Structure formats: structure tokens, C-alpha cells
């Protein structure tokens, strides 16, 4: 019970923190920022990895698919964000 409440406290603080971190973003960064936060939401991969520890064939299949999906999110998400931001950099280099 205590642990749960502490986790809840952590959740609440992180929500407020997430709210504060994003402010006044220039519009050309909206898409990269969306993509970058999407990559972070790939943190589900941690859950997916942990769920491979459960045992049972069907559960393992589910866990495997979870790992596949989450790693698509993580790898794809970070790389695509980087590519996008690289484009901006390329445009900026000339000034």
C-alpha cells in the first residue's frame, strides 16, 4: 500500500513536470517535438521486457509481440526524430 501511494505521488509530480517542460515551442518544432515525445512513450519497452519473465506459452507470445511493437516505437521514434531535426540543422547551417 505504501509503495503504491508513493508511486501515485511520483505519477502526480511527473504529470506536473511534463506540463511545465513544454512551453512556447516555435511552430516549426511542433512535429519533431511530437515525434520526440512519441519516442519517449516507447518506454513501454521496459514493461514489455519485464513481461517476458512471466512464463506460459500464450503469455510469452504476447510478451514477444509487445517487445516487437515497443522496439518499433523506440528505434523508429528516435531515428525519425533525429532525421527531422537533422533537416532543420542542414537548413540552418547556411547562416
Amino acid at each position: 500500500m505504501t509503495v503504491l501511494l508513493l508511486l501515485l505521488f511520483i505519477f502526480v509530480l511527473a504529470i506536473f513536470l511534463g506540463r511545465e517542460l513544454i512551453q512556447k515551442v516555435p511552430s516549426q518544432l511542433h512535429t519533431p517535438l511530437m515525434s520526440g515525445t512519441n519516442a519517449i512513450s516507447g518506454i513501454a519497452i521496459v514493461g514489455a521486457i519485464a513481461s517476458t519473465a512471466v512464463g506460459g506459452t500464450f503469455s510469452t507470445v504476447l510478451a514477444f509481440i509487445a517487445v516487437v511493437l515497443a522496439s518499433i516505437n523506440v528505434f523508429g521514434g528516435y531515428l525519425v526524430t533525429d532525421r527531422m531535426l537533422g533537416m532543420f540543422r542542414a537548413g540552418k547551417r547556411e547562416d
Partner: protein
Amino acid sequence: MEAYFQLAYIAAAVLFIVGLKMLGRADTARRGNMVSAVGMLVAVVATLLQSGVDYAVVFAGLVVGGGVGVFWSRRVQMTQMPETVALFNGAGGGASLLVGWAEFLSRPGQDTVTAIATVLAVLVGGVTLTGSIVAWGKLSERVSGRPILFGGQQVVNGALLLAAVVVGVLFAMNPGGGYAWLLVAIAVALVLGVLSVIPIGGADMPIVISLLNSYSGLAASAAGFVIDNTVLIVAGSLVGASGLILTQIMCKAMNRSLTNVLFSGFGSATQSTGQAVEGEVKAMTPEDAYFVLEAANNVVFVPGYGMAVAQAQHAVKELADLLEENGAEVRYAIHPVAGRMPGHMNVLLAEANVPYEQLVEPGDVNPNMEMVDVAVVIGANDVVNPAAKEDKGSPLYGMPIIEVDRARTTFVLKRSMKPGFSGVENPLFYKDNTRMVFGDAKAVLGQLVGEFKSD
């Protein structure tokens, strides 16, 4: 040992926080993304070292998923970015759903709180999964981009939402025994994801994706409560909250409210145009336009969605170079919602190597619009529609625009008199100082370039 994992998770959370902060500023964004990626690496490694993990399964999954992710992210074109993000996002939501499901199967004797977390992970994850797939389909035109509306749609969606809540409560009240309820919850979530996104027009998809992105964070956070994992909770709720703020920022830039985006079926039909438009349309050939441009000292390009459709960014840059050689000052006025995704024009023009300092915002160019000899509107429409300033009855009223109607001469490059995304008539086309140069933007620009070169 356990203590080291927690410390690693704290480190990962800090990296996410710092990375997210850096992502919001142009000069640090790219490094911010890398910082956040390092955080992910730390979290993954710490998790892998925990006991019981089935390395074969994880490794196989990482290779398959990582391979797909890498391949995909390399292959897509810049203009396909939003739909790609949608797919990745859907995958993340799906993973949270599966984590909740798998955990339930292996530890059916859940307490109430875990049961609530499980059903939330499954519901939110499921909506994210199918909603993102529909958004992807709409943007990539595999599914019609038009809003798909049917009678009683909102009633059906409302009923589904209610069903989701009821099923969730039933499952949580009967923890452990409610496998059937969990399966029902999964089904409801998947259907709800589809049905809540299909009535939304394709052009609103960036906002929907941003919202679904926030959801996938919340789903991950719920999954974190299922397995008592701090970094999942923190990273998930960071994304959940920041994604919501970002969604609001995006709505604001388009002068829309989130409710309006989600429920109005905007763009579903050509809407009333407000006032009737008076005046005469004056067309001009590219040859004649060339003579005007040739004499101009101060030229502003105003790109819009049509430039993306015609893939005319390189042609624009070529023309701009010739104009500069000819002694003119050239700038590009970028409206925040020109195109179909935020930063759309910036990305395209960056691809064509347009110098960063030639990009100006509406607020920079509007005050001195009278000094502009020629404003060249390239496939833009709504973002230069003076009705936004003048006509209180217009759906666009109140949106800041690029006021090319006040330039000395304005060329509008588009194929027809058809309205843009909003379906609203554009009085600009009827103004005295406006000349329509009809045709595909790339073709017309090519002709102008040809005239300059043959000179």
C-alpha cells in the same frame, strides 16, 4: 541489487526530463533527442539485468522490432513524417495493451488497484493502437481523408465509451476472475479507437496524432502501475502531460479548439463561405508574370499546402536564386499552419537548402507589406485569406494571416479557383492587385525559371 536498478531508473528519468526540455528549443532539440535516447538505453539495460527476463524472447523481439523501426525511419520521406509517427505511436500503445494482458495472464490474483491499472493500460493502449492506425491510413491516403460520418455516430461513440467504463469497473471489482471482461475491454478499446478517429478530417490528423501520443504515454504509465515500475510511470506521465500541452499549442496555432477538432467533422462538407465575394478575377500568363518579377526589388514567397502537393520547393529555390542574382531581396513568409503539419513548409524549404535567415514569420513581414513589390503565393490559400481579418461570419475569422492583399502586386499560383482546406472562398483572388497564375505550381515556376534563363 534492486537498489541499483532503481537508481538507474532515476537516472533514466532525469535524462528524459532534460531531453524533453531541450527538445523544445531549436538550438538544442537534436541533442535533446539524443539525451532522451540515452535515457531509454539506461532504462532498457537496467531492466534486462533484472532476474527472470527471457533473453531469447527479448532478443528476438528487439531484432525484429528494431529492424522494422530502423528500416522504416530511413525509408520514409519528410512529407510522410506525421503518418510514420502515428504508426510508431500505435505500436507503443499496442505494447502497453499487451503488457497489461500478459501480466494478467501470469498473475491472475491481482488486487483491485493492479486490476484498475491493468484495465486502463488495456483500454488506453487499445484506443491508441487502432486510432493511430486509422490516422496513419488517412494521412497516407490509404483510407479516405474525408471525415467518415454516419447517422448516430456520436451516440455510438458515447455508448462505446460508457461500455469501456462499465467493463473496466466490472473487471476491477472482480480482480483475477474477470478474464472475459478483460477480453471485452480489449475489443471495446480497439473498436473505439477506430470509430473515434474516422469522423475526423485528414487535415486534422496532426492534432489527433499528438493527442494519441499523449494517450500512449498514459497507457505506459498505467502499465507501470501494473508492474510497479517507476520509470514507466514517470516517462509515461511526462509524455502524457507534455503531449496534452503540445496538442493544445497546436490547436491554438490553427485557431481551433480541441473539442472542435474531435467532434465537429471539420472539412466534411464545403461550408458556407460567409460573405459573397465581389470583384473580378484577373489571370496572368507566366510570361507576363516574368516581366513583373524581373522589375521587382522586394519579393516575398508565401508557400502553402499546394507547394507540398506539387513538390515545388526546389523550383521555388531556383527562382529565388535567379531573382537574387537579378538584384531583388527575397524572403519566405512562413505561416505556422501552412501545409498539413506543423513545420511542414520549414521542412520542405530546408530540404531545398533555403537559407534559414530568409524565412520570416507573419509578424515580421506584415507591418512592412506595403514595401513588398511582389508577393508570390505558391499553393497557399487559407493562410492568405483576408476574410480572416475582414469577415466576422467567416469560419477563418480571427486567424492571423499573411496579409499579401496589402502588397503592391500579388501572384497566386494554383490550379483553379477551388477553395483550400477550410472550404472557404478567398476574396484575395478578386482584389485589384492580385493576378492568378493558373497551373501546377512546379510547372508554373519552371516556366518562370525558363524565362529568366532564356533572357
